[in-house]
């Protein structure tokens, strides 16, 4: 599904990632873990096209996507969420999801400005679809609220609902459980497992080990920009190098 080959990223003189290679299987939930500063978020920024790559290549379903822009990747079905949730803060919750449906609609400036019938029909469909996504994520009750006023946990769920609006084949989630309470984390786990069931590949960077061990099918461990290990949660838990990296960090 997603394959990374020798990804290296250098900022100025600083090597943030060095020769990272791994593959992610279709329909699996893969966790990327590692101590702080391991380069997990940098890796996400590279995969999602926000940063350029210094060396190496990325393939999505066999297609080379190394130099794709975020918008092009979105059209290919690769979407992401952000560590510090990037909502459209001045727009309502419903509108946020409707922006997610942008690529699923195609009225141009002209038909929008004149409210042509085809535009109105499309608008109605978008609204219904967005509402059903909000319901799926359990936040339909706040549909008309301005996103900036949302409690943090609901903001996370909104970000996921918005990403789902693109009907993605693969979702990258950057620390989705950070800042969530137990109940919200449980809801999150449920949503992620639902996504998997519907055939979506999920990649997450996460610090909540309990969640990671519970839902992930396989793990990639990064440390100081290098790949330390890959394997199933069980294998990783017993991997000596991983244990040293984490304990050494403490």
């Amino acid at each position, binding site marked *: 599904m997603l394959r990374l080959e020798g990804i290296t990223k250098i900022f100025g003189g600083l090597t943030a990632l060095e020769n990272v290679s791994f593959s992610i299987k279709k329909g699996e939930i893969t966790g990327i873990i590692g101590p702080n500063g391991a380069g997990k978020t940098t890796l996400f920024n590279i995969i*999602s096209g*926000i940063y350029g790559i210094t060396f190496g290549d990325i393939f999505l379903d066999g297609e080379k996507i190394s130099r794709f*822009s*975020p*918008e092009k990747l*979105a*059209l290919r079905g690769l*979407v*992401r969420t*952000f560590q510090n949730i*990037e*909502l*459209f*803060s*001045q*727009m309502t919750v419903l*509108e946020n999801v*409707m*922006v*997610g*449906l*942008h*690529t699923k*609609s195609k*009225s*141009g*400036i002209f038909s*929008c*400005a*004149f*409210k042509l019938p085809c*535009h109105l029909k*499309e*608008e109605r469909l*978008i609204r219904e679809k967005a509402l059903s996504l909000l319901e799926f994520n359990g936040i339909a*009750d*706040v549909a*008309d*609220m*301005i996103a900036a006023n949302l409690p943090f946990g609901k903001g996370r769920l909104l970000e996921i609902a*918005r990403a789902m*609006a*693109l009907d993605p084949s693969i979702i990258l989630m950057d620390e989705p459980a950070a800042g969530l309470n137990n109940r919200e984390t449980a809801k999150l786990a449920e949503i992620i497992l639902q996504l998997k069931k519907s055939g979506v590949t999920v990649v997450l960077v996460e610090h909540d080990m309990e969640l990671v061990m519970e839902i992930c099918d396989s793990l990639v461990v990064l440390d100081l920009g290098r790949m330390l290990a890959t394997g199933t949660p069980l294998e990783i838990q017993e991997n000596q190098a991983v244990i040293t990296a984490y304990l050494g960090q403490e």
Partner: protein
Amino acid sequence: MMNVLVFVGINTILAVALNLLLGYAGQISLGHAAFFGLGAYISGVLTVTYGLNSWISMFIAATATGILAFILGFPILKLKGHYLAMATLGFGIIVYIVFNETVALTGGPSGLSGIPNLGIASLTFDSDIKNYYLVWLFALISIFLSLNLADSRIGRALRAIHDSEVAARGMGVNVRLLKVQIFALSALLSAVAGSLYAHTMTFISPASFGFNFSVELVTMVIIGGLGSIYGSFLGAALLTLLPEILRAFQDYDIIVYGLLLILMTMFMPGGLVRGVPGILLSLRPARKQGREY
């Protein structure tokens, strides 16, 4: 007074046009007077020098300005923040100087006169009252179209760009193209306003299209309220009527104007549309909360 209301109409079109760019997409332009001027001069020169029909001239002026802005938009809108402000400002000043220097074509600083009025069949828009209806017809159409646009997938995508460009791109919004398109649309509307201005005043000179007017337009949009089409109307109305009212202060009007600008921005940062109706403001959150719980 009718004369002033014609100006309010023209400035409303301009403020609404600029608001699409500044208030919705969050991209500043300190050179919008240039598009206004291009509309006026293309229309003026085509009718006066080449004897073209006024409506056809208006159409050409709007299209040509829109296309120019579209082409210019690609390099200019790559810039952000104060770099964008400076580039648009520079463009505005260059155009202004060209109006002044190409004397053979534009009449230079002394202006271009004898521009014919617009007309339909035997009706010629040659009095203030007729122009008032004409200009306001255009202004209402601009408001109507902009409101529709704001409340559509395009409007949402623009606001999304404003809030978080990186997230908007992640949603598959072609940020670059959309910015350029809205820049071109905004320039096109401004050129229509310019053409209307030329045909209602029948005389134009570069002084109306300088840096100061670009700044005044930005001020109208901000004082009115960013991202509010009705706010743009309020801002345009206030800033057009204010100098008329301040005439009582004679030479001191500019001082009062500057002072009002500072005070209004300090005490009404959201603009007239959010600042003035204090009652509305206190009602709105209450209603919102009612719906939520």
